[in-house]
């Protein structure tokens, strides 16, 4: 499998805070990588930097062989990176269909169009012409993922898709994700729910205070080790 995303020594500030420190990461095509960590660990800043919505203060991002570090977000979408932002960020006064169609403007070739999205997320079919602001959390999440898919990305970034949603709804979201993964999608997702992350990813990375502190496959990592890395406990000699 070829490496599609290569992040090298990335550093990013969030206001006065150094949110991302010296992060290096490689994602191979077809892989699903999960980034876990507590609030404020820098996960969202990292994802936004990869998507181009946040300007890094140092390091490089190479996508599909091209250095995209200085490329603005809308150009990265054209290259094939799509982010489903934290909190969904749908356009409230636009309908579901309009939300989807805005993202089709980049005109990347691929199988995703409005009909394909509605097929993948059948719950959206009756909501096609409904204002995004009037949707429930789960419906919004489905729309947001669908919207990102409309640009036919090669790399899909998902930021906290389970946030604020009922477990049953999250189940549905992850079922759809499983479908995407089966289809060969390359996914980099940020997830606070540890079990979900371990359940869906090929590789898990744990982030703490802007750094990667633990990395491995779900088989290699026990819950205990991850919890330690999550909270930064270090068991000193008793």
């Amino acid at each position, binding site marked *: 499998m070829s490496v599609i995303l290569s992040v090298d020594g990335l550093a990013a500030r969030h206001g006065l805070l150094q949110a991302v420190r010296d992060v290096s990461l490689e994602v191979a095509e077809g892989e699903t990588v999960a980034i876990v960590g507590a609030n404020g660990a820098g996960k969202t800043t990292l994802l936004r930097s990869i*998507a*181009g*919505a946040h300007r890094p203060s140092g390091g490089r991002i190479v996508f599909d062989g091209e250095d995209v570090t200085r490329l*603005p*977000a*809308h150009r990265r*979408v*054209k290259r094939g990176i*799509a*982010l489903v*932002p934290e909190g969904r*960020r*749908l*356009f*409230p*006064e*636009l309908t579901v269909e*309009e*939300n989807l*169609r*805005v*993202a*089709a*403007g*980049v005109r990347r070739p691929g199988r995703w169009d409005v009909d394909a999205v509605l097929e993948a997320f059948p719950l959206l079919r009756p909501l096609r012409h409904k204002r995004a602001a009037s949707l429930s959390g789960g419906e919004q999440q489905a729309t947001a993922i669908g*919207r*990102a898919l*409309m*640009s036919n990305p090669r790399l899909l970034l998902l930021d906290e898709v389970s946030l604020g949603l009922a477990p049953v709804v999250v189940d549905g979201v992850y079922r759809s994700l499983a479908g995407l993964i089966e289809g060969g999608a390359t996914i980099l997702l940020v997830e606070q729910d540890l079990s979900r992350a371990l359940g869906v990813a090929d590789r898990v990375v744990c982030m703490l205070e802007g750094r990667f502190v633990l990395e491995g496959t779900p088989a290699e990592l026990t819950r205990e080790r991850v919890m330690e890395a999550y909270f930064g406990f270090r068991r000193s000699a008793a």
Partner: protein
Amino acid sequence: MTWVNSVIHGILLGGVYALLATGLSLMFGVMRIINLAHGSLALLGAYMAFLLVEHAHISAYLALVPVLPGALVVGYLLQRTMLERSLRAGVLVPLLTTFGLLIVIGNLLQEFFSPDVHSLNPGSIGPAAWRITSRLSIPAFDALILGIAILVLGILQLVLTRTQIGRELRATAADPDAAELVGVDSRAVYARATAIAVATAALAGVFFAMRSTFDPTAGPTQLIYAFEAVVIGGMGSLWGTLAGGIVLGVSQTVGAQINPQYFALAGHVVFLAVLVARTILESGGLRVRLGLRRVAT
């Protein structure tokens, strides 16, 4: 002139204001910028048409053919050079730079065109009117302007709702950051919005110049009328701008019916009254607004 006549004239005048205010409303809706130079840009359009009419000896309508695309370019450049930076610099800065632009345009016009009053010839439609009764007549040219205003607003509304450009515009207006993340170049969208705004301003300016006289100091007045129309109709709504323009027009003509010198003043009074009424209604009570209650911690 009878009262009914003055109301009708006011409604037609509303068409002029609506056309003028469209660009202002658009820029505010998309970028939250109030372009204080908007009236001056409309006036600039009128003067450019005037130049063409005087030197190329064409009709004012024909002058629109080069003036409108020119205005699109001016708007696009204005956004990419000045307003883009102003937006990034903070909320106060666009006001300051567009005010500076107002001063610059107004004084440049005065320098190059003298303070004299000018007018554009509307052609044979100018004096035409439909006589309904012996005391009631509808000026044809004003009706034309209202028709054009409705047409422009209609086209704009269609573009916003049915086209990809329109979707991108609405999306960027709602959330420029999220729009970027789905591949929309927000800076290009803003530039398009400003281009359209300046073009409609120029269109309005040319028709205004055909309807009445103009001079280099007319810019600020037109800005104020356009703004009053936008506020009365509700900011950020295109059809609201039409309604606001009509209310303003009627206020002015009815005021003028009472006393010709009350023309502008009547508009100002109605504007301020709507402002106060809307704030009271929206805030849910004066007590809260006067800060008489400390916010509990």
